[in-house]
């Protein structure tokens, strides 16, 4: 057990956990930030995607001890009330089916667009390939990313 002060969504949080604990479970169990989802635990599905600074990361394999004072953003902190351009595009295209994968998809897409504001189809597919949607909303996700990109 060790004490960590984490900078999440612009706020400081204290947790006392095993240093090996993945951020996914720190967020979900200790901070009740459940928008970040568990899907596989082995960095294969992308449902647990968060931002470390501007970079999208799989939180299921990211030990809390490696965070230090980097800024963490979760879906709860992506925008105040769901008005991040990616979230708005998701609503416009009515993307979700069951919705379970979508917070991870949105977090990955948001980080991707920040680094590549004008992506082509191949770039979108390559960037999003690590995020599985079992309901098969891929066609809509791609359309929504294009909408978000063109603003």
């Amino acid at each position, binding site marked *: 057990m060790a004490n960590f002060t984490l900078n999440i969504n612009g706020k400081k949080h204290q947790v006392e956990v095993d240093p090996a604990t993945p951020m996914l479970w720190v967020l979900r169990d200790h901070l009740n930030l459940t928008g970040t989802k568990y*899907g596989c635990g082995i960095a294969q599905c992308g449902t647990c995607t968060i931002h470390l600074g501007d970079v999208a990361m799989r939180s299921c394999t990211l030990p809390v001890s490696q965070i230090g004072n980097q800024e963490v953003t979760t879906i709860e902190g992506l925008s105040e*009330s769901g008005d991040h351009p990616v979230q708005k595009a998701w609503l416009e295209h009515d993307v979700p089916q069951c919705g379970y994968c979508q917070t991870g998809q949105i977090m990955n897409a948001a980080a991707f667009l920040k680094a590549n504001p004008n992506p082509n189809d191949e770039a979108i597919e390559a960037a999003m390939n690590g995020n599985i949607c079992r309901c098969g909303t891929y*066609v809509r996700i791609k359309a929504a990313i294009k909408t978000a990109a063109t603003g």
Partner: protein
Amino acid sequence: MTLVKTTYGRRSFLKATALAGGGMVLGFSWLAGCKPSGKDALTLPKEWFNINGFLKIGENGVVTIMSPNPEGGQNVKTSMPMIVAEDLDVDWAKVIVEQAPLDTEKFTRQFIGGSQAIRQGWQALRMAGASARHMLMEAAAQAWQVPAGEITTEAGVLFHKNSGKSAGYGEMASAASKVSVPKEVKLKDLKDFKIIGTPRKNVDGLKIVTGQPLFGIDTHREGMLIAMIAHPPGFGLKLKSVDDSAARAMPGIRDIFTIKVLNDDYERQHFDTCTFLEVVAIVGDSTWEVMQAKKALKTEWEPFEAYSEVRTFWGQEKQTLTIPAGLESSSVHKSKMAEMAAKPGTVRRKDGDPEAAFRSAAKVLERSYTAPFLAHNCMEPMNFFAHVTADKAELAGPLQKPEFTEKALSERLGIPLEKIDIQMTRLGGGYGRRSYAHWLLEAALISQKMNAPIKLMYTREDDMTAGIYRPAYHATFRAALDANNNLTAFHVKAGGIPESPLAADRFPAGAVDNYLAEDWTIDTNITIGSYRAPRSNFMASAEQSFLDELAETAGKDPLDFRLELLERAKTNPVGEKNDYDAARYAGVLELVKEKSGWGKNDPSGASRGVAAYFCHNSYVAHVMDLTVEDGKPVVQKVHCAVDCGIVVNPLGAVNLAEGSVVDGIGNVLYGELTFKDGVPDRSNLDKYRIIRHSEAPKAIEVHFVKNDIDPTGLGEPLYPPVMAALANALYRATGKRLYDQPFMGERQMLG
């Protein structure tokens, strides 16, 4: 207008309404939970008036519509309330949707499965809306002292033309809640629909994209512990011994014990499938700590002896089933299936004299098809919250058939049904898997033992290796053509482990004079369950691939060949029991022919495949265009034609159709679960391949047949024919027919 009685089936809607209706209901505590956020938030009323089980109206005209069925991505939480709103005649912008509690007195069929929610809910939902509208009109008539027949409504406002009086529904809601429920109500004419048939966004969209806690796995309660289970690593195994000394000493661990999921003498119902009867429970403070302790458990497993269980399957007599012993392997399954396929099966239908027709045939084509076991792999692994005390049980989580699971739970806990409360959360995918809720029993038993609220969490590995799979299947088709290339005989022999996929009365039964359908099964201790379009999900792929090859053998266009057979079934059907409407079946083929420009040169140079199928009361045809690049199929476009009657919410319907197409492509190319000595070869998403972004079609176009037929299923019927459309297109691209699924599996290239 249609006049309908307010009773249906065995149930009286009237009684249900009277039980729930009447009186003024103040300040519901659940309002906090359903308050919409963001700019478009509605101003919530100060008071709510209960009109009936399905809806409440606030004094300011805001309406809450209860959505009776669990939502797992099929859009029922949006589309079912749309139906209520239509006959209530209210402005959709003033509607709040709330998940109804499990209440089998008020609602019927509160479950997901068989693409039936909209089909079976249609009348009841319309009636709920129409009854409330009628009661509001009565209340206005009394208040204004005018005949009720002179009152009209529009978008949540009551009017009396002659006196010029008008009032919002909110103003009359209190009085309406005291009006007696009508015995008969008028339903709107289809031509007057303003909500049904118009695209409406997912009512939970904003909550989903902002990550609000909607799913069972998000459940959090004060003092809640986390539990996991350890189950046997393979089928045919049971628990021998547990050494928990190391695990118990680990940080955050509260207790470790074994639980028996069902009593030995329990008579199981259809959905009570339980793979592992005894499991080890690990309970602790946090998920990570429990996961670590689970790894530190030293467990020994041993093969079990064959045993029997008493079971009543849907619509069947009680039977005693034998669960065989043994550690099974896919290689053995394969040879056993080939053996069974070579022997005569059980005859399920015979028309004419197939043997003679085959003897005198000019050409005979015979082909066999196989498909493996599949895991559902819902993105949200199985989980459930339970708080069981001495005399009651509170549960919350994702499941498809709460009303069935409740019975097993009551029996196992020894707590009467009325003391059990199951709250339905959103499902992170279902596809059939969450109909079999053994994990709910496990959660409840763990909570009972701990005397504390707990959340049971399956890891992905637990989820994938716990059984309840799509069965493995095999089918052999044989067809006879005469010298003029007319189909003279058709023979299908299908089987599976452990169920047969055959539907003997489906097309092309009825379209050919000499027809024979046989089937067979092989026992197993690997458990199976419904999987998106059960049985059809294999039979469509096999039959529609075969028809493609048969058309080629006959020198005919594959789409026109199907139409030719359907014409026969329409004008001069063979046999009485054909379970499809040949005209509607042909209708989707004609629609997809037109929309895809079938038969014309495709400018993109893609290869095309066609397939069609009828199941779950709906008709579907797909044309798929694909190219092969670097040995990989690239689906350029899928044209879908669907006849599912009236489409309630076209936006949700198209989304669901797109998802079915993607799912079909993914499973036929990559999906498989194989076994070695009882142990699944794959337990996580590194090995179990699920279709990803770059493998999805570049475009999907969905076309609905427009008609006035009451809505039928949509969640399942689009899925089965996708696989054959792909196989047939691939054949045109590569010159190779594919018979064994998956076509690629873990390989990065075809072939």
